[in-house]
């Protein structure tokens, strides 16, 4: 199924409590080589036809204006997947 994948991460300078909790747990398991964990979002937009360049542009617009909030998050990638 053709889809567009939008990946969003919390901004670097913002506290990511989920990531911190997971990192603490990994450290408890002895995985000390992992220095930090950050958790973001992966959003899939599904299509029932081939994805066009316009679709990708539309998705980039939605990623910037609706799917993320630029005060607290960064859109890391908007990619096509067949």
């Amino acid at each position, binding site marked *: 199924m053709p889809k567009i994948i939008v990946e969003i991460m919390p901004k670097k300078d*913002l*506290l990511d*409590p989920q990531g911190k909790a997971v990192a603490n747990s990994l450290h408890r398991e002895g995985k000390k080589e992992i220095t930090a964990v950050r958790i973001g979002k992966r959003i899939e937009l599904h299509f029932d036809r081939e994805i066009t360049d316009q679709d990708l542009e539309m998705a980039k617009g939605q990623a910037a204006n*609706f799917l993320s*909030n630029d005060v607290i998050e960064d859109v890391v990638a908007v990619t096509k997947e067949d």
Partner: protein
Amino acid sequence: MKIGVITYPGTLDDRDAQRAIRLAGGTPVPLWHDDDDLKKVDAVVLPGGFSYGDYLRCGAIAAKAPATKEVIRLAAKGLPVLGICNGFQVLVESHLLPGGLIRNEKQHFICRDQKLRVENNETAWTSLFEKDQEILIPLKNGEGGYIATDDTLKMLEQENRIAFRYVENNPNGSMNDIAGITNERGNVVGLMPHPEHAVEAGFGPDTPTAMRSGIDGLLFFESVLKMVVNS
């Protein structure tokens, strides 16, 4: 005087807001998120709760609702709008107010009576307060930490657009102790604490005078009613 209160799926405090409007002397008008007819109301309250289950981000989906789109259109023409808690989150997601709200600094949901200082008493919703008046109203939220870029904070400070600041303690890590802000025109106000829960003696916060006697929230609604009558 008709004041609309929008109910989204997941809104909790719509009936409390309606009651506050009634106690202030206005006529509350229930509005539905999926209807862009605002029934010719003179002002609108976006109440607290968890609209659309806080999915995506708090307030993000409500910001796209038909009723909200109409609020955005009419706010540009001067319609008074008050966003309380989740309503404040809807206002920042709608870009009617700048900045954003993130999880409380210490990660806990906080529910308590909170002292605020009225920094700007020239908005549609604060005109009956004295400048720098200290008020006590309930606060209850999990994502109430106000953040904005340095430029936005500077602009808010310089243009006197910080409507309320937390006094004595900052409960959620909000930048510059910001509890609520207003737009340039002063018709749109958003804050995290809940004025609608402090409007009737016997049901408000405790005060030095008597238990549950705090009614500082009433002036929000009386302020807007006075402004609408005078215009």
